[in-house]
């Protein structure tokens, strides 16, 4: 079926289209080049509307053990936001950590068509993919967590051949069906098992003697040489610690030209100025990042209200457990690989610390010059649930609204912040980069995040409303692979998205030491650890898209 969207103002920065009136044709799920003589089977008159590709969230915790721990932990979150079954959609509940089906519906209703889980433990990849499989409407993908696993730490400490490290990284991506690799508190999750309560960039792991700097450089280089498009996704050391801006600056310098991505950088941008020894490090960090083109970031914006933090960083999550609200943190050590911490959190605008976190995130957005290296995230649900994105977009696009919100903050936080002096207002082009084109390019999604010929028919149509929060909260039309799935902000058709993976080459002889390692220490066999394609593609549950990787470098 050929469909035509006619008369919309198209914002497609990947193809250098900025607010031009264009017709878009979609056939068999793909966007066609202009077809002037075509006779569409269906035409949507969208004159005056804003058209963008479906939005992509490159960092949102939607699947895996920690999310279901959070779901179990918070009946107040769940029974406080229940959703009834309809003829079309499943029942569910949950605000900060909604059930899987609701997560898919709510993302689609906000114009998103792809979401990426950034912290999948390889040992728990099966459950993560099951949960993502039960998340309809959107494409999915996940980043395998490495860097605190004993096999890798042993490789590093024994100074194994670097090619073997690359083989292990690639093998893990295959086994866990991942599209990228993330490191969380590099080495710190393992160090916490040895009762280290902090691990700075050049501090040695108590047993393995390796440092976070070594871990980051080895993994970043491995991914580059394996040809994986998305660079090492780094949740750095010392998350949430006042003064951690120095660690972040050191991490930026440490990359030394290697491509890396620093995630939820807001949580890593804290100084120790002022009477309360807590201040913004965003200006200094962003100043350096603006001069460092090899590094991309996402913000992890804090927005006010109740949420639940969930992270693989058991060391830091244990430390913030004392701030839990309600007071019921979970800390877990997991299976030779990792750990996790789930800490309910309520961010308040009258709290000095929370208000500064809010300003630090916004300062980062507004000072950062290259929108192609910056992604819009709240690190759902850590900074705020994902439904707050429209509010965040309005904060970025509307200086007077931002000023109005700023006036509500804790007075001491206001007096410390440079935010009122930042006049920048994001444009629709820039929002389209932050939420579509940039993440697609960074993740290597060739046919997502743009509206050029050959792209998937993932399209979002908005009413052009000066209230950008209202505009982005309720798109008029959302298409997934050319099918209309959302109309006036409500699901009208339930579809299953694909799972995106990357499969860099590796030497299969890496399985010999791995097999021995599994037999000696693990509780599952090597073969059982691997997730087969037909575990992801079952019944009506979507498909696998293998995104290309570049040729392996020696």
């Amino acid at each position, binding site marked *: 079926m050929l469909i035509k969207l006619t008369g919309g103002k198209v914002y497609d920065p990947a193809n250098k289209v900025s607010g031009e009136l264009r017709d878009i044709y979609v056939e068999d799920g793909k966007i066609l080049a202009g077809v002037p003589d075509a006779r569409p089977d269906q035409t949507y008159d969208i004159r005056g509307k804003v058209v963008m590709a479906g939005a992509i969230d490159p960092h949102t915790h939607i699947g895996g*053990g920690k*999310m*279901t721990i959070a*779901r*179990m*932990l*918070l*009946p107040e979150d*769940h*029974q406080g936001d*229940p*959703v*009834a*079954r309809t003829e079309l959609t*499943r*029942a*569910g*509940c*949950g605000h900060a950590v*909604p*059930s*899987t*089906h*609701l997560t898919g519906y709510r993302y689609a209703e906000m114009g998103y068509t792809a979401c990426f889980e950034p912290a999948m433990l390889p*040992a*728990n990849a*099966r*459950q993560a993919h*099951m*949960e993502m499989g*039960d998340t309809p409407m959107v494409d999915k993908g996940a980043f395998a967590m490495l860097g605190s696993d*004993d096999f890798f730490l042993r490789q590093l400490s024994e100074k194994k051949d670097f090619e073997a490290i690359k083989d292990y990284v690639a093998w893990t991506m295959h086994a866990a069906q991942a599209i990228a690799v993330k490191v969380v508190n590099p080495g710190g999750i393992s160090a*916490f*098992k*040895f*009762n280290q309560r902090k691990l700075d960039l050049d501090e040695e792991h*108590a*047993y*393995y003697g390796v440092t976070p700097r070594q871990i980051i450089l080895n993994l970043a280089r491995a991914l580059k040489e394996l040809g994986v498009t998305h660079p090492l996704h780094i949740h750095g050391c010392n998350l949430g610690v006042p003064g951690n801006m120095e660690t972040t600056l050191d991490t930026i310098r440490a990359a030394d030209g290697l491509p890396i991505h620093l995630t939820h950088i807001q949580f890593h941008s804290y100084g120790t100025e002022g009477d309360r020894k807590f201040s913004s490090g965003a200006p200094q960090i962003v100043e350096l990042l603006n001069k460092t083109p090899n590094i991309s970031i996402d913000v992890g914006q804090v927005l006010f209200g109740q949420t639940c933090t969930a992270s693989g960083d058991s060391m830091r999550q*244990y430390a913030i*457990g004392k701030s*839990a609200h309600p*007071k*019921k*943190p*979970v*800390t*877990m*050590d*997991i*299976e*030779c690989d990792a750990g996790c911490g789930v800490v309910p959190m309520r961010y308040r605008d009258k709290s000095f610390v929370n208000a500064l976190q809010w300003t630090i995130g916004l300062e980062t957005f507004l000072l950062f010059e290259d929108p192609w290296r910056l992604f819009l995230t709240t690190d759902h649900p850590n900074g705020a649930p994902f439904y707050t994105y429209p509010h965040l977009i309005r904060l970025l696009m509307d200086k007077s609204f931002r000023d109005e919100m700023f006036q509500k903050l804790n007075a001491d936080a206001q007096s410390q912040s440079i935010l009122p002096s930042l006049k920048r207002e994001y444009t629709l082009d820039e929002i389209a980069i932050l939420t579509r084109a940039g993440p697609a390019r960074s993740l290597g999604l060739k046919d997502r995040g743009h509206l050029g010929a050959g792209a998937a028919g993932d399209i979002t149509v908005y009413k052009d409303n000066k209230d950008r929060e209202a505009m982005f909260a309720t798109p008029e039309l959302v298409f997934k692979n050319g099918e209309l799935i959302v109309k006036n902000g409500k699901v009208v058709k339930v579809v299953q998205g694909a799972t995106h993976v990357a499969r860099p080459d590796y030497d299969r002889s890496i399985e010999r030491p791995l097999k021995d390692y599994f037999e*000696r*220490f*693990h*509780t*599952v066999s090597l073969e*059982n650890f691997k997730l087969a394609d037909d*575990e992801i593609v*079952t019944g009506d549950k979507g498909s696998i898209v293998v995104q290309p990787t570049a040729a392996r470098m020696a």
Partner: protein
Amino acid sequence: MRGEEAELDSALERAADLLDRARFPVFGGLLTDIGGAAAALSLAEKLGGVIDHAASAGLMRASKVMRETGGTPASFGEIRNRADTVVVIGKAPLARDPDLVEKLFPAKPGLPRPGDNKRELILLGADKAKTPKHVSATAVDSRASLPELVALLAASLREGRFDLRDTALRAKIDAAAARLRKSAFAVFVYDPAEIEEPVMHTVLEMVRHLVLTTRAAILSMAAPGNGDGVNLCSTWTCGLPIRTSFAGDVPQHDAWAYDTDRLLKSAEADALVWIDALAGDTAARPKGAAAIVLSANPTRAAKDDIVIEVASAAADHDAALFLPPLSGIGMVKAGKADKGKPTVAAVLTRIAELIDERRAA
């Protein structure tokens, strides 16, 4: 059906009729894999029924404690490799898994672990009759009740003052507490089906106290019959654990109200779907309402039951299950795939389709 053998198609039609007419069906037993659980959740939601599991009692207790106070779990592999002190509380853990100590204390050395203590097992309220020779074990057993033993250990751990006339017990408790204080990674193992919620709270408080200076965690024994797997699947699918009802506008969880036995005894439920199809496990179907029994085991059917013989998960077909040694979901390959019998998921999905057809007609 009614004691007579019938073709599968006709049994499914009857089951669809019965369930379509049911006012408030309960899906119980749920000894099945994740695929079967997902299909049961979907059908229960469609029909406005309840989902429950045969091993809900312990699961609900553990879930309630977590919802009240959080938790500090460690996965099985972590404990096996790294714990230097393991305290097994009560008799149930070893009764549930007689090889538990051997699994937690493998003869060969594990991964690097914190500290240099020799690994030690403390049995609290259980005897050490079956402890392998290579394991250094002490038993703290007495006529004292389990809650009392846990409370005494917690008091001694904090070096608080308390009186105990049984001097022999006092010495053992104090020795165990001293060992815990010098542990690098202490783990408490219990079965939530055996110990009550206040006892679990006391154990968690011990962990929290230890973690101020060292590392400690708990291992809550997994429920039998893939109970944890079914509970996880329910939680991610609808946001609530098992014992959830879909009868109202929105899903509602209540560990007391949506207990299969209670619903049948009170006659609130008017139909039962009993699922008993997991290799190596079985649960007896409770008496009560008219039942549709999906079973891989020989079944003593009541007169009005519709019994559908299904494949046994992990025996007749590959099955995703919560695996206690992994503390997570793993894939168990079937010994020999028997494609002759349908899976629980296939049967429930077909019944759902037949109900849709009736409603559309």
